[in-house]
């Protein structure tokens, strides 16, 4: 980590020297190149970072009730005041999420000296810009601030991120944000992480919908001193000058066409910690080739289905809004034929009496198919012990009988990534000579 920080500091000095007024600092591919540490060739940029599954940030253990994270892939990221090499902070326990886009950090984990030096984006009226970001059972509201960002040897200058739970003008959540329902995310304890880095299939977190002044689940707000209430249009740029939150990977100078998540397989009994890697870029360096992975093109931002989907066929039913998502802690799908757990804490989990092989098939938008087979396990043992990571656990999102329509989705959560090397290529980028967006594994 130390050598990465030194490399980052050196890179910032270079960009500061080359700074051209108002535009993106020049990224030089060779600026952040420490020793490869054992390899015979030195990559131009350190294009990987460690991913750790563990009990989570200290806020979880220190909260009431104390709890531990489960199946949560964490990375560390570094943010600095724009142009500074000293007013910096490395934020640990940031969720690595292939199912969303943009960097979001709980504002209270950022030290006050740094937070106050991170400029808040301004809209055309000169007011502060806020953002609401909706998840399936919660929402996060906060300011949009800019920082010099780094992960591994990759970096983005002046990158907008969401400071969740920011105070002052942003303290009151707009009604149009909370009216989507769910709990407010405000603290590391309530989020289960210090932040989240969304590296999904789109280049920005909202795209053309916010460009037109609407809300896609991400919505930007005009925030005068009196507070935030009006949704405003923000441009979808994945390079400076930014407005919407970019996919940080799409904003890198190089290695900017996607990611590879490389996690080991996990035994049925689970483990307390797991360590893997995220590689940035696909087919851009010697360590991130596409190889023989099966490529599965996905729906795009202009699809009526929404972006980043493929079809999973499960027990004869084609589910056209299915996806792979490292930010989902479990598999989510409906199968009324599988038993549900009776323990109160596990009331939405499947509890098979024995390990049960399941074999959904994935069909891409171009007709390519791949097996999505996995083994379903009973969570009773793994979730009651000391394990923070376990494979093959699944939730039924709809226990209503018969299931109501609209459930058209099979969510291959992070357990699917255990033992698979999963590629996520970004829309509009070519990755390994194949056009994104796609998943491959």
């Amino acid at each position, binding site marked *: 980590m130390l050598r990465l920080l030194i490399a980052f500091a050196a890179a910032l000095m270079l960009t500061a020297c080359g700074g051209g007024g108002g535009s993106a600092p020049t990224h030089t591919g060779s600026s952040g190149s420490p020793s490869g540490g054992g390899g015979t060739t030195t990559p131009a940029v350190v294009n990987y970072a460690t991913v750790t599954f563990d009990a989570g940030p200290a806020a979880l253990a220190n909260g009431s009730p104390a709890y531990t994270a489960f199946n949560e892939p964490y990375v560390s990221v570094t943010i600095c005041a724009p142009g500074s090499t000293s007013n910096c902070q490395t934020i640990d326990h940031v969720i690595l999420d292939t*199912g969303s886009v943009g960097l979001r950090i709980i504002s209270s984990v950022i030290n006050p000296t740094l937070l106050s030096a991170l400029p808040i984006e301004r809209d055309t009226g000169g007011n502060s810009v806020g953002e609401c970001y909706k998840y399936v059972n919660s929402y996060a509201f906060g300011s949009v601030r800019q920082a010099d960002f780094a992960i591994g040897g990759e970096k983005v200058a002046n990158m907008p991120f969401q400071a969740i739970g920011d105070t002052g003008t942003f303290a009151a959540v707009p009604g149009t944000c909370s009216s989507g329902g769910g709990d407010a995310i405000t603290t590391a304890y309530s989020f289960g992480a210090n932040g989240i880095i969304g590296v999904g299939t789109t280049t920005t977190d909202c795209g053309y919908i916010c460009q037109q002044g609407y809300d896609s689940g991400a919505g930007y707000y005009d925030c005068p001193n009196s507070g935030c209430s009006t949704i405003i249009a923000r441009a979808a740029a994945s390079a400076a000058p930014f407005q919407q939150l970019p996919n940080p990977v799409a904003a890198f100078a190089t290695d900017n066409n996607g990611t590879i998540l490389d996690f080991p397989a996990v035994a049925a009994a689970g483990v307390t910690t797991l360590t893997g890697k995220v590689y940035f870029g696909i087919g851009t360096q010697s360590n991130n080739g596409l190889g023989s992975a099966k490529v599965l093109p996905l729906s795009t931002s202009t699809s009526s289905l929404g972006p980043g989907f493929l079809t999973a066929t499960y027990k004869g039913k084609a589910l056209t809004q299915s996806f792979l998502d490292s930010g989902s802690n479990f598999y989510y799908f409906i199968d009324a034929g599988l038993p549900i757990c009776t323990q109160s804490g596990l009331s939405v989990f499947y509890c098979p009496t024995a390990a049960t092989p399941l074999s959904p098939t994935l069909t891409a938008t171009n007709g390519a198919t791949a097996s999505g087979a996995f083994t379903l396990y009973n969570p009773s043992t793994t979730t009651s012990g000391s394990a923070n990571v376990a494979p093959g656990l699944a939730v039924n999102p709809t226990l209503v009988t018969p299931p109501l329509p609209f459930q058209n989705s099979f969510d291959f959560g992070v357990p699917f990534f255990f033992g698979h090397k999963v590629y996520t290529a970004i829309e509009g980028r070519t990755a390994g000579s194949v056009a994104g967006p796609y998943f491959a594994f």
Partner: protein
Amino acid sequence: MSKARRVRLGIAVGAVAGSLAVSSGATAGLGGKAPSIQLDRAQLGASLHATPQAGRTTYAMALPNGAAVKEFTNATGAVFAVTWSGPGKPDLRALLGSHFQALQAASRVRDPRFRRVPPQVRQSDLVIQTGGHMGYFWGVAYIPSLAPAGFAVADLK
């Protein structure tokens, strides 16, 4: 469905608007009466098409961001179901009316280890099912006792 008659309600808006002041304090959204649909339409900035069918009417709204909302009324004009799908989440406080709190209660994390589970409500006379992913969310809220005879949940599609 393909034979159903589609009626533009644009002209009706003015007539209904006169009653808004009276009805705004009444139950709106799910469980409310058909006039509340115009309140919801205005709240969502949506266009509205009504499709009368045997024993029920489907009110389909197209939201400016591309999302779709439907409200289903029975023969007495009571809203017995609401569905939503598309980018973002619509104003569920308006669409679910007094039942929004049930969704909120279901959204609360019971075991903090297992967060980010789509909220669902399974009460004897209220069913809410939700789901989604970045850029696209969906859900169904349904009051079985208000549904017309012979109504099948598959018809909510």
